[in-house]
């Protein structure tokens, strides 16, 4: 199971390592978009865009559907749930840590201030 998750995380993070692909996900978060529209939006050839969408599709981040002659892309069923969950846990750790650090920094600032006042007197 862990291996399965690792493989999926591999594919997801590889897919997300590219700025265009992250842009595509952002766009799809706003609205479903055809490959042609995506290619135009990102100033890219249709072939280039198909490759990017392919990588996202492989990672399960994007799903495509052909209706007539148009292939429409939307966010995949998994979306970013797993990565988001992991990053969220990691951020929670650092945010809690930094909130405590904030208090200590505040304390040190006050101390410096009052020491400075004492020196002036």
């Amino acid at each position, binding site marked *: 199971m862990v291996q399965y*998750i*690792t493989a999926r995380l591999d594919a997801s993070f590889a897919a997300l390592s590219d700025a265009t692909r992250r842009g595509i996900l952002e766009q799809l978060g706003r609205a479903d978009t055809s490959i042609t529209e995506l290619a135009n939006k990102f100033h890219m050839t249709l072939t280039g865009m198909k490759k990017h969408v392919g990588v996202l599709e492989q990672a399960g981040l994007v799903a495509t559907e052909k209706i007539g002659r148009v292939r429409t892309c939307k966010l995949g069923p998994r979306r970013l749930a797993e990565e988001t*969950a992991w990053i969220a846990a990691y951020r*929670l750790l650092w*945010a809690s840590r930094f909130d405590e650090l*904030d208090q*200590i*920094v505040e304390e040190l600032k006050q101390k410096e201030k009052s020491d400075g006042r004492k020196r002036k007197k």
Partner: protein
Amino acid sequence: MAANGKSDPGTNRTTVERKSDRELVVTRTFNAPARIVFDAWTKPELFRRWWVPKSFGLTLVSCELDVRVGGTYRLVFGQGAAFFGRYIDVTPPSRLVWTNDEGGDDGAVTTVTFEERDGKTLVVVHDLYPSKEALDDAIASGSTGAFSEQFEELDALLVS
């Protein structure tokens, strides 16, 4: 998100980003000059008060920091887990670099920079892993950071 700083919500947000295959980057701004923030990272009696957030319910049994180039650090938790490594750059008050040796050859090198601007300090924590696999493994095993229990819970959540 709940990551906003208490004193100045919105601007003091903690961000976490996987910058590349091998890098994780955490940022946060503090309302204090760099020398003060740097002190809190390098004086053991200060460091131990914040590195393990109270809300995580873990006990830091000992915290030894010998902050100088070539000096070592060692953090020991109640459960027996130990985190240790070596400082490879100490440039007050702007830069700290240390190794994470408890993971053997797969450990990250952590670089922390303190950039002061208008009396505020931007802290950037940058973890560089030796390989993509090392970072993926750290993520998958939940061993990133000192709180494996948290990540084990997350693992359970992902599996279900």
